[in-house]
């Protein structure tokens, strides 16, 4: 038998591209919405008021302590099949109809998951802000809100870039479980190609190489972002040293 038949891959290329596109959509959209939600929530997380910080920490405790696959199944099968929600479907309540859609459920699960991880990173970065920066803002007469927007957040977000790059890559890899709820992402496409041709090596190695390629692009982008926004934290090189 042939161990690696390139014709299997070339014959299913359009399928792989469509799957890759779904993977990229799921990853980018959930990361972006998760990021937008994580910023205000991270401020709530570091609040000294327990009524504000406790609910956020309960949320991150749940979403960081359980597997994303179970979260996805909980949202897609768990919520969608509860009797109350099915009653809402019958009355034609369009909001709850969304939970019938695997794509929506995957986006929701991924967003909630990545938001929990991102907000803890940002909260950590906010807690570790050098005291002098905050004092300087106060000395300049900034209000708490102004110093938050101009000093604390820009400084914290820059320092959160390295862990954020890790989270982006983990999210790309994590999105592979979308095929558990009938979505045909890159992994789903590979599974279809495998079952049609009974060709596990071609299907999964090619999908793996595509994931690897996207990962390399992301790593490169983050290197660039770090050299751009974290330049002031880099050790000075010998050639730049002047007396």
């Amino acid at each position: 038998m042939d161990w690696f038949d390139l014709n299997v891959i070339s014959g299913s290329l359009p399928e792989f591209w469509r799957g890759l596109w779904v993977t990229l959509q799921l990853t980018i959209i959930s990361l972006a919405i998760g990021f937008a939600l994580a910023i205000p929530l991270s401020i709530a997380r570091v609040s000294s008021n327990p009524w504000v910080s406790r609910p956020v920490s309960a949320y991150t405790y749940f979403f960081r302590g359980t597997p994303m696959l179970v979260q996805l199944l909980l949202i897609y099968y768990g919520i969608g099949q509860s009797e109350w929600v099915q009653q809402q479907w019958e009355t034609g309540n369009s909001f709850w109809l969304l939970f019938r859609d695997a794509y929506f459920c995957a986006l929701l699960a991924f967003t909630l998951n990545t938001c929990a991880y991102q907000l803890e990173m940002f909260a950590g970065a906010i807690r570790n802000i050098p005291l002098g920066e905050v004092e300087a803002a106060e000395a300049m007469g900034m209000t708490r809100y102004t110093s938050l927007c101009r000093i604390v957040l820009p400084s914290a977000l820059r320092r959160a870039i390295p862990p954020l790059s890790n989270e982006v890559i983990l999210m790309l890899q994590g999105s592979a479980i979308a095929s558990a709820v009938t979505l045909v992402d890159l992994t789903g496409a590979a599974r279809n190609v495998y079952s049609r041709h009974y060709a596990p090596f071609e299907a999964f190695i090619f999908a793996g190489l595509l994931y690897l390629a996207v990962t390399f692009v992301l790593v490169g982008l983050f290197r660039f972002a770090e050299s751009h926004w974290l330049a002031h934290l880099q050790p000075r090189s010998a050639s730049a040293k002047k007396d």
Partner: protein
Amino acid sequence: MDALIEYSPSLLAGAWITLQVALLSLILAVASGLLGAACKLSRIAPLRWWTALYTTVVRGVPDLVMMLLFFYGGQVILNAISDHLEWEMIELNAFAAGVLTIGFIFGAYFTETFRGAFQAVPAGQMEAGRAYGMNGWQVFWRILFPQMLRYALPGIGNNWLVLLKSTAIVSMIGLADMTWLADQAGRSTHQPFTFYMAVCVLYLAMTAVSNHVLQRLQRRYNVGVREAKV
């Protein structure tokens, strides 16, 4: 609630499978991690290149894709072998495929953890051991290894917590772990939410126990280290 009580023995049996997968993969991953770290720090260049390739590929490919490749690809290889030797067909077991994949993947993460920890032990410590007349093995076992473990412990803890959660994907190759059993129970009782929630609670409980154990280990290996209090 009645349904949950009725199915709890099955769910707990699934939790035991999850724990077995996690613990066996941990052993495999720690062993490959130590071997990987030794290769990465070795003076033989090809060994370093192969380990670099290993850690890069593992971090760039989703665990699910790797698991499907091991499970379905492994079956094809087994079939070819049994054909060739004219044996009966051997079926690749999902448990073994799951443990091998997760152990292989986390071996790469442990490689990085141990490499960093070995490098963090000051060279003077080993020189002092030599000066006392210890041989290479004694220096490794009495001086390098215990101190390395102290530096590696936070990383080991993190890797373990991530590993534990990643075991859920073995349900996708049909292994009856707690996620898979919750799926079955949810289908037959029409209460999937209850059962997935129960799985979440079980995972949270395992995480809480692990955190407790890790803290105790940390205290044990940090004996004699003074920490600055701010």
